[in-house]
C-alpha cells in the first residue's frame, strides 16, 4: 500500500466526514432544541439534490443550482414543520418516528412521480473540475478538496452562529429550558421553524454538493441519514462539536477501513478470502465504532444526557 493511496483515502474520509457533518449538524440541532427525531432529514437531502439537478439542467449554472438547493430544502423544511412536525414536538418518540417515516414515503414517491426513477446527473463547475497536484505528489480532485473547505467553513459558521449571535443564544437557551425562553418573550414557535429550516437547508446543501459527484436519485438520502444517526450517537445528542468530531471519525473509519481491513486479513488469510472478509467487515466498521463508543460512553462523546 502506497502512502499516496493512504493520503488519498484520508482526504476522501475527510470529505465524506464533512458532508456527514452537514447532515448531522441539522439532526443534532433539531434533537437538541426541539427533542424531535426526524427520519425525514434524508428526504431534505434528496430535495436539495433534485432541486440542484433541475436548476443546473435549466440554467447550466452550478452556483444557481446550489442556491436553489438551499432554498428548496429550506422551503420544504418550513412546509413540513408548519403542517406536520410542529404537532410532534410534545408527542411520543414513536409518533415522531411514524410521522417522519410517512413523510419519507411521501417525499420518495413524490420525487419519483416528478423526476422518474432514472438517476439525474449534473456536473461540477469548470473552475473546480479536474485534479490538483498536492505537495508530496498526490493528485486529488479539486472539487472534493473544495467540499472539505466548504464543510469546514460551514462548521466554523455554525459554531459562530450558536456561540456568538443572538439567535444562537436563543437556540441554546431553548435547548435547556423551553419555559424560560418563552418567558423572555422569544417567539418559540418561530424559533423552532427557523432552526428546522436551517437544519433542512444544511441537509439540502449537502445533497447538492454530493449530487454533483454522484447520481441524484430517489432514496439517496437514506444511507446518509442512517450514517448521520451514527454520527449523532457517537457525538452526543445536541452537540454541534460532537457532530463535527463524530462525522470526521465516521468518515475516516469508513474510508480507511475499506482499504486497511482487507490488507490486515491478508496477513493471515489467503488473498481472496481476506478481501472478502475484510470488505465485509469494513462495511460494518462504523457500526462497530458506534458500539465501542456506546460501551464506553452511552450518551456519546459530548452528550449531556442519555
Amino acid at each position, binding site marked *: 500500500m502506497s502512502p499516496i493511496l493512504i493520503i488519498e483515502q484520508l482526504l476522501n474520509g475527510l470529505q465524506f466526514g464533512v458532508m456527514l457533518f452537514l447532515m448531522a449538524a441539522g439532526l443534532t440541532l433539531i434533537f437538541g432544541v426541539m427533542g424531535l427525531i426526524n427520519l425525514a432529514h434524508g428526504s431534505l437531502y434528496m430535495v436539495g439534490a433534485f432541486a440542484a439537478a433541475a436548476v443546473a439542467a435549466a440554467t447550466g449554472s452550478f452556483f444557481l443550482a446550489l442556491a436553489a438547493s438551499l432554498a428548496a430544502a429550506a422551503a420544504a423544511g418550513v412546509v413540513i414543520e408548519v403542517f406536520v412536525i410542529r404537532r410532534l414536538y410534545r408527542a411520543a418518540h414513536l409518533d415522531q418516528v411514524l410521522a417522519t*417515516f410517512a413523510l419519507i414515503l411521501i417525499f420518495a414517491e413524490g420525487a419519483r412521480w416528478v423526476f422518474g426513477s432514472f438517476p439525474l446527473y449534473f456536473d461540477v463547475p469548470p473552475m473546480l473540475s479536474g485534479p490538483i497536484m498536492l505537495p508530496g505528489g498526490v493528485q486529488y480532485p479539486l472539487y472534493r478538496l473544495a467540499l472539505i473547505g466548504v464543510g469546514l467553513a460551514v462548521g466554523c459558521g455554525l459554531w459562530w452562529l450558536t456561540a456568538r449571535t443572538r439567535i444562537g443564544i436563543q437556540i441554546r437557551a431553548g435547548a435547556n429550558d423551553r419555559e424560560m425562553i418563552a418567558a423572555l418573550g422569544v417567539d418559540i414557535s418561530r424559533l423552532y421553524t427557523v432552526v428546522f429550516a436551517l437544519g433542512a437547508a444544511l441537509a439540502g446543501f449537502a445533497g447538492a454538493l454530493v449530487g454533483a459527484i454522484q447520481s441524484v436519485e430517489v432514496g439517496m438520502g437514506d444511507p446518509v441519514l442512517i450514517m448521520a444517526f451514527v454520527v449523532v450517537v457517537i457525538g452526543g445528542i445536541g452537540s454541534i462539536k460532537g457532530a463535527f468530531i463524530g462525522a470526521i471519525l465516521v468518515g475516516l473509519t469508513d474510508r480507511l477501513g475499506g482499504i486497511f481491513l482487507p490488507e490486515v486479513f491478508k496477513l493471515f488469510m489467503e488473498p481472496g478470502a481476506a478481501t472478502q472478509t475484510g470488505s465485509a467487515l469494513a462495511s460494518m466498521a462504523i457500526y462497530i465504532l458506534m458500539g465501542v463508543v456506546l460501551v464506553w460512553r452511552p450518551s456519546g462523546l459530548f452528550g449531556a444526557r442519555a
Partner: protein
Amino acid sequence: MIPERFITFAVPAGLFIIAILAFWTDEPFTITLTTRVAILGLAAVGLNIALGIGGLVSLGHAAFFGLGGYAMGILAYHAQTYSPLTLGPLVIEGTKSMPVIWIVAVVTSALAALAIGVLSLRTSGVYFIMITLAFGQMLYYFSVSWSAYGGEDGLSIYLRNEFPGINTLVPIQFFGLCFVLLCLALVLQARLRGSSFGLALNAARQAPARVETVGLNPVRLKLLAFVISGAITGLAGALYADLNRFVSPSMFSWHLSGELIVLIIIGGVGRLVGPVIGAALFVALEHWLGGLTEYWHIGLGAILLGIVLFSRGGVIGFLTGKAGPNV
C-alpha cells in the same frame, strides 16, 4: 363499541376463513396474500412484545427478520448444492427441513437480539431508536458485501423446504403452517402479557423507577422482552424467505423495520391482534392501491400521517373506543 376479546378471536378466524374460501374458489394468489398477512403479522407480533408491552421503539427489527431469512437461505443453499457449511473446525450439513431451519432462525435471531439489546439498552429514548436502526443497517451492509451468499443479488432456493407430513408446495398447506405458528405466537404473547413477567415489563415501560424500588431490574426485563421479540421476528423471516423461495439484503432494509412498526400502529399498539389487522390492511392496500397506481406509497404515507396526527390507538382503538398503552 366492540369488546376487544371479540376482535382477538374474530381477526385470526377471519384470516383463516378468507384462506379457506380462496381454496374452495381455487384462487391460489389470494391464499398467497393471506400467507403474507400471516407471516408479516407474525413478524409484527414479535415486535409488538418489545414495543407494545416493553415500550422499546426498535427501528431495527429487520435485522432479525433478515437473519431468519438468511438462516433459511444458507441452510437450504448448502442442501441444494450438496456442499457442507464449514465454520472453522465445525462442519454443518445443509438442510431442507423446516423445523430445523426454524430452530436455527430462532436461536440466531435471539442471540443477535441479545447482543444488540445489551448495547442498545445502555441508552433510551431517541438514542435507542437510532442505535437499533444503525445495527439493522450494519447487517444490511454486511449481507450486501458478503458475496459468498449472493451479496446484493441474494440467494434463490428452488424448492420450498419440507415439513413432515405436509406438502409445503401446496399454497393452502403452507398457509396452514404459517397460520398455526402465528396463532402459537399470539397465545404466547397473551400468556406473557398476563404473567408476572408481563406485569413487571409493562410497569417497566410506564414507571422504571418504581420497578427498581421493588427490587427488579427494568433493563433486564426489557432485554429479555427484546430477545423474545427478536426470536419471533426471526422465525417470521425464515417463513417469509420460504414463501418467496428467495432471500436478499432487502430483508434487512430499514424500510422493512419501519413497515413493521407501521403494521403495529395501524392495528393498535400493544393490542394482541393489532399487528395482524395491520398486516392485513397493509397487504390489502399494497394489492389494491398498488394496482391503481404505481405511487401507492404516497397514499400509505398520507394514511399513516392521518393515524399518527388524529387517531391514537389504531383500528382496535377505534373499534373498542379505548385508547391503548402509551409508548
